């Protein structure tokens, strides 16, 4: 089987692997690089728990062949943790009890960050549409929506509630 070198910049770090067979980006991130915030809720593209940002765009790592992102910049929640922009969202999640079991939370954080990067002032409809690819079985979503609204209010200078 022909193999090739794939280069990625993951969370600012240059990484190189030799890959031959079809390999998902998820497997590389979780198993090879130990970015365990990339959760494996379905490997079917249905739950959003493996969401990452690839070259500025929200995508699902489970359905992305790693060969197709050669030369790309990949950001997982571990990468976002190093940025200031995620801190306000994280605090809102804590204040609004927006996670229970926490398994969907990393994917939620990444998806919400991607939403806010694109649209810093989303309406409630835009928020729920932005969350449409991420399943949470615990919270009933309302606390998550409130957390996002809290961040939006903070960013626009209004009160968080």
């Amino acid at each position, binding site marked *: 089987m022909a193999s090739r070198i794939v280069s990625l910049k993951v969370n600012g770090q240059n990484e190189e692997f030799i890959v031959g067979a*079809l390999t998902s980006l998820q497997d590389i991130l979780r198993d090879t690089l130990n970015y365990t915030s990339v959760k494996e809720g379905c490997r079917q593209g249905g739950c959003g728990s493996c969401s990452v940002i690839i070259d500025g765009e929200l995508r699902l790592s489970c*359905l*992305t062949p790693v060969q197709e992102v050669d030369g790309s910049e990949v950001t997982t929640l571990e990468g976002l943790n190093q940025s200031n922009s995620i801190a306000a969202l994280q605090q809102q999640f804590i204040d609004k009890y927006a996670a229970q079991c926490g398994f969907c939370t990393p994917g939620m954080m990444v998806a919400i960050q991607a939403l806010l990067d694109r649209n810093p002032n989303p309406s409630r409809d835009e928020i729920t549409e932005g969350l449409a690819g991420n399943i949470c079985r615990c919270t009933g979503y309302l606390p998550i929506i409130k957390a996002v609204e809290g961040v939006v209010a903070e960013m626009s200078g209004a009160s968080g509630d």
Partner: protein
Amino acid sequence: MAEYLQPGSLEEAAGMIASHGSSLAIVAGGTSAMRYSAPQAEHVMGVRGLGMNKIEHFSGGLSLGSGVTMSQIRESLPIPALQEAARGVGGPAVQNMATIGGNIFARQPYGDVAVVLLALDATVTFSTVNGEHTKKLEDFYASGAQADGLLTRIDCAAPGGELVYLKCGRRRFNSPTVIAVAACVGLDNGKVGNACIALGGAGKHPTRCAAAEKALIGEALGVASIRAAADQAAGACSPGTDSVASEWYRRRMIATYLTRALQQIAAG
């Protein structure tokens, strides 16, 4: 364990398809192929690097590369029905990945964008080792949706009338599709001059509904003709049963949603 192939050109891709035949799966966005075809295939060919993600506008019409994503359609196409269909595919991450080419090959009840393309009487162009060939999307589906080479682009003219797309789902966003309806109707002196009715979830593939079109052409777009078209569509379609909806419910929704689409057009 599938070998991963990355052709550097359309010619190379066409060659890989020719030499590997049915043992090859093609991955563009990955949202469908990575689940269904690629894991079982001997060879997987990634086509993201081929640059087939261009949108070209010409005299009201469009030429869409097969790698154009749902997000590109939502953000940069002037046709609201196509935007709405693309908006209904998955959540934001899926929309950044899923391509129009993948949508055309998607198993039902997926393939909502293809329903609109069908109503626009689009053509599909394949690249093969013997060169390019183009066929109508309708004929492509009528002959069993068999790929002949690599789907490179989809072309369509401007809508020949009022175009409406409606989807029946089970939740507001990121819903599986029960059925989808796209109706393009051109009025001529108060009567229907041309009608293109396309249905999703009504059969094995997205389908044109000639019976419904026939019921409209030459008639005033009103209660009687709309009812006749809806009855024809419900009678002519052959929807399937799956986890999301039964054949019975789908047939009923085809009539209901076609009625709603045509009423919307009639109301202007």
